[in-house]
């Protein structure tokens, strides 16, 4: 003889009190909660404050990016403002997405590093932000800032960053990397040349 099906009782079986079973009071409570949130947020919007948790992208930057977040690329500069890059193409070689394009130039007057980039461009429509270019660089010429590049566009052709846009940061003030003329062990470095 077949035994009738008995439903399994779970340890977290939901229970409803009589008040909750009456349904209408709980619905009213829910409506009060949601309309309360609505009125609070509307009050904030009307008084000129922001009534949402959303961050406008790309107009606003989130404040809680991790300090080590791999975001937009930065080309470091020498004290004279030239890029630190020696156009060795190691970053472009290691790049798994093949987004870095470098055109090298040659300057005999600068005997310490005669090779320099004429063009240094990154296609952010394909960049995967892996940071391998930063690790491959022998000259510490490319780093990644924590901010995102902020390049949303309808057109992929618009999503390239050129050298001018990446040369935004002069690390003379960076204590971790002293430069000639910035004090510290700059003399030792200068002697190497």
């Amino acid at each position, binding site marked *: 003889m077949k035994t009738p099906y008995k439903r399994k009782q779970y340890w977290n079986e939901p229970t409803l009190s009589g008040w909750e079973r009456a349904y*209408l009071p709980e*619905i009213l409570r*829910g*409506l009060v*909660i*949601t*309309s309360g*949130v*609505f009125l609070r*947020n*509307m009050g904030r*919007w009307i008084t000129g404050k922001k*009534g*949402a*948790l*959303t961050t*406008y992208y790309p107009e606003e930057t989130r404040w809680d990016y991790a300090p080590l977040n791999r975001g937009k690329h930065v080309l470091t500069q020498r004290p004279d403002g030239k890029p630190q890059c020696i156009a060795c193409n190691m970053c472009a070689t290691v790049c798994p997405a093949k987004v870095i394009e470098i055109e090298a130039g040659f300057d005999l007057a600068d005997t310490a590093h005669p090779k320099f980039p004429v063009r240094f461009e990154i296609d952010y429509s394909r960049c995967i932000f892996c940071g391998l270019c930063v690790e491959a660089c022998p000259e510490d010429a490319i780093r990644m800032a924590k901010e995102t590049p902020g390049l949303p566009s309808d057109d992929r052709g618009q999503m390239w960053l050129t050298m001018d846009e990446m040369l935004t940061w002069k690390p003379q003030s960076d204590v971790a990397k002293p430069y000639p003329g910035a004090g510290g062990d700059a003399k030792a470095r200068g002697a190497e040349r």
Partner: protein
Amino acid sequence: MTQDLVVYVVYIAYAVGMLMGFGTVLTWVERKQAAVMSDRIGANRAYVRIPFTQIKLVWLGLFHGIADGIKMLVKEDFKPRTYDWYAYAVAPWVVFTPVLLVFGVIPFGGALDPGRLFPSLAEWFGGRTYQMQIAQLDAGLLMVFAFSGLTIIGAMLAGWSSANKFSLLGGLRAGSQMISYELVMGLTVLGLILIFGTVDLGSMVRQQSGTVLGFLPAWGVVYQPFAAVLFMTAAIAENKRIPFDLPEAESELIAGYYTEYSAMKMGLFMFAEFIEIAIIGALFTTLFLGGYNLPYMNDAGFTWPGGSTWAMSHGAVVVTQLVVFLLKVLVVCSFQILVRWTLPRFRYDQVLSFAWKFMLPLALANLAITAVLVWSHQGGAA
């Protein structure tokens, strides 16, 4: 007769324009209200650029409704191979048209005297006055139910003729759910019919212009608070919106009875839903919230409870009544959107048992108590 024609053409243009406007604006209100309720910003990227300039008008995302409409119009109108092409093509219109027609009997303002409004036309109008209501039918409320019953046929036609099992299930669900709640809706309104002694909506609203007990506005919600709650619930279920959106429950039925519809045919279903929000708002306002009446206001101005009066010109009264009606409708619409973004969806068997085992007995009890009270108030057994 030409005068009548002019006035009613203006009325019809106003009504259609108002409903279309509500249908468009409510998509925006729904998005924005939902966003603000859940700590978001909401759609705010669509813009209109003034030609030859770089000035982009965003206006808090109001243009997203236009973007939606254009998208619906230019999308591919995919036609399924169905055995009943005619029913498939006509179903969106069967849903859409009655929704517009219902507004014909709803009064959206008090008495209008065009001669007083435009003195230069006074001679031509010859002192005629018009109620601001397109059709002053004695059977107004019955017409409302007759036409809103037609939308059931549209939903079922769409479900049947799409040759898709999801659509068929959605159509079946729509049919049984809407018929059940139509009944509850009718029963809740019967109490009001007993009290006001008429089914003419214009007359109902005029009876709601006074006061009860000297200070309470004589609105339907004061006489029938319980029926107001039941009516609102049944109306939301009738409109198939969350928490009663079982006919189009996307997690179960993709889009229910309009799964096979695309482009503007699908847009018509959506637009009909938003216009029906406005229609429910207008109906609830008319039946329970005193229509265009403000408390203590009559056709000559305000009469405060203390006995002091505040006279208003005819033009000011007309404009106030129109605006008050629109504001009340907007508040009720906003409440429906609040409900939609607060409550989770029912299970399907719960929807039907809620209608037949919970709301129907309550509506009947409400009707019985109202009947007894009205009977005793009118002199009892005598």
